[in-house]
């Protein structure tokens, strides 16, 4: 397969997987029913054999020597310099590059950042924090840390940020032009830098949508820091022992809703409907995205509201929603990988190649420009479709397991099964809805 065999111009397709619809090797209805049965059967199995809290402690193995290497000034300095060089390179392309599809800035933002943070966080834990440009610079100047406000606002600002990002990534008509991208990058820098000067680095975790997203996914990784030491842990325990900050359920619903809208907006009937309308497309896009997020969040809150009667200690609706939001994390990860992994594989390579020539002057830094895009894994649509199916169904199964463990910790014994049924139904609706959207015609 030639280098441009699977070219998708970022200009028109900033965030669509290649071949978002692939035929599954069996009738689609069977897959959907099968997935719903698997999620329900998992729950049934759990209520019978999982009656004690098992995931509430981190466990795992401490890695003191590795931790010392990672926290050593030398490693910090080298990582910091590499981070600054990369972002300076990016800034150069953003400020003086050409307004062409071949400018790597589009790929860096829409693919390497937005999609890349998912595997980086799932495999590398808190690695994303270490690669944050503002955190890196802040680490050298150490602005005062004032966290009092952040405990209360949690990650709500980041959840709002995900919606703004969703608008930019999926709807804004000129998102793939340099001036518009510049505007959004400047907005992001102002948000993060001013906030950090105001409230310390804690602000980054609260308000930077990418950082909050990465931090949430890092709880499903096999790495966790505890008392200054890195531990190699079970991903499920990592997640199950987490007490998410306020707003984590809002963040997860914003992520799920915008991803659902991405699939929904490429269905034939939606395109046909929007293109037949005389109203501007961005308006329909906004209506569609807000509706999707509302449906996802509404279902989740309804499931939580119907569970609260069984709580041992009655907590507020949103607080309960955040407690159980650990169960949403694998679903978010499953959707992100199911929807965008193909995009990362293909466009990620293309972006790295384009980074050799940030200004469109024919440079070939590090010899990157000589490489071609390797698309071999995607030449088998069935394999791609199967992987997408595994990510989505697997995400829901893990979500049900983690939510059930939380339920065992927080619900009265006699209410265990009945109180959880509405939330399980929500999970099944998510599974079916997600598959229908991902593989819809």
């Amino acid at each position, binding site marked *: 397969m030639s280098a441009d065999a*699977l070219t998708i111009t970022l200009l028109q397709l900033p965030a669509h997987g290649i071949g978002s619809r692939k035929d599954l090797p069996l009738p689609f209805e069977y897959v959907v029913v099968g997935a719903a049965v698997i999620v329900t059967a998992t729950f049934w199995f759990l209520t019978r054999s999982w009656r004690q809290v098992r995931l509430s402690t981190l466990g795992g193995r401490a890695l003191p020597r590795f931790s010392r290497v990672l926290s050593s000034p030398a490693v910090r300095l080298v990582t910091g310099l590499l981070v600054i060089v990369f972002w300076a390179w990016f800034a150069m392309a953003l400020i003086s590059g050409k307004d062409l599809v071949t400018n790597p800035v589009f790929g860096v933002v829409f693919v390497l950042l937005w999609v890349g943070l998912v595997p980086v966080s799932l495999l590398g834990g808190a690695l994303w924090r270490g690669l944050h440009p503002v955190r890196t610079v802040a680490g050298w100047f150490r602005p005062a840390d004032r966290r009092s406000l952040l405990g209360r606002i949690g990650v709500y600002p980041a959840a709002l940020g995900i919606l703004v990002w969703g608008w930019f990534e999926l709807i804004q008509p000129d998102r793939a032009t340099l001036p518009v991208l510049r505007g959004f990058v400047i907005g992001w820098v102002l948000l993060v830098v001013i906030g950090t000067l105001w409230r310390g680095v804690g602000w980054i975790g609260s308000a930077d949508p990418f950082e909050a997203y990465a931090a949430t996914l890092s709880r499903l990784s096999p790495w966790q820091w505890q008392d200054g030491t890195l531990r190699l842990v079970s991903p499920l325990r990592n997640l199950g022992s987490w007490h998410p900050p306020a707003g984590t359920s809002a963040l997860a619903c914003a992520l799920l809703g915008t991803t659902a809208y991405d699939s929904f907006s490429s269905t034939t009937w939606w395109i046909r409907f929007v293109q037949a309308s005389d109203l501007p497309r961005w308006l329909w896009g906004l209506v569609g995205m807000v509706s999707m997020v509302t449906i996802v969040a509404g279902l989740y809150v309804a499931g939580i509201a119907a569970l609260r009667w069984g709580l041992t200690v009655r907590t507020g609706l949103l607080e309960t929603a955040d407690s159980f939001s650990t169960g949403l994390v694998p679903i978010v990860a499953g959707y992100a990988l199911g929807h965008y992994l193909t995009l990362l594989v293909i466009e990620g390579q293309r972006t790295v190649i384009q980074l050799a020539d940030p200004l469109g002057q024919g440079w070939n830094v590090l010899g990157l420009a000589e490489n071609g895009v390797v698309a071999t894994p995607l030449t088998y649509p069935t394999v791609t479709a199967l992987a997408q199916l595994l990510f989505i169904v697997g995400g829901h199964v893990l979500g049900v397991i983690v939510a059930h463990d939380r339920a065992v910790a927080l619900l009265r014994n006699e209410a265990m099964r009945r109180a959880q049924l509405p939330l399980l139904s929500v999970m099944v609706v998510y599974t079916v809805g997600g598959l229908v959207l991902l593989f819809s015609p």
Partner: protein
Amino acid sequence: MRRLLACVMATLLLLAGACSSTTASGPVTINVTIVSGKVSPSGAKYDVSKGSTVTINVTSDSADTVHVHGYEIEKDVVPGTPLVITFTADQTGSFEVETHVIEATIATLNVR
């Protein structure tokens, strides 16, 4: 726990491996009309088997550009003069066919 996950995986694989897919082969023809800023077909999906010939006939009442993604075919259409785009679908994937002036999605070609 591990047994549960193994069961889930096995069921999924069994489900997905049960049958095999069939795709209709043969040439694909798409007749496109652009009238007062509206396209027809609008956002339609076409299954194309790899190696077959795709023909896109376009008539428009306004000047526009038709772009086949991935194959990077971009042709101008003049009002009143039919435009014919013919190519061999030799790359697998999902490719959009769009107009650049009224910025509408005509069709998506699913080549496999």
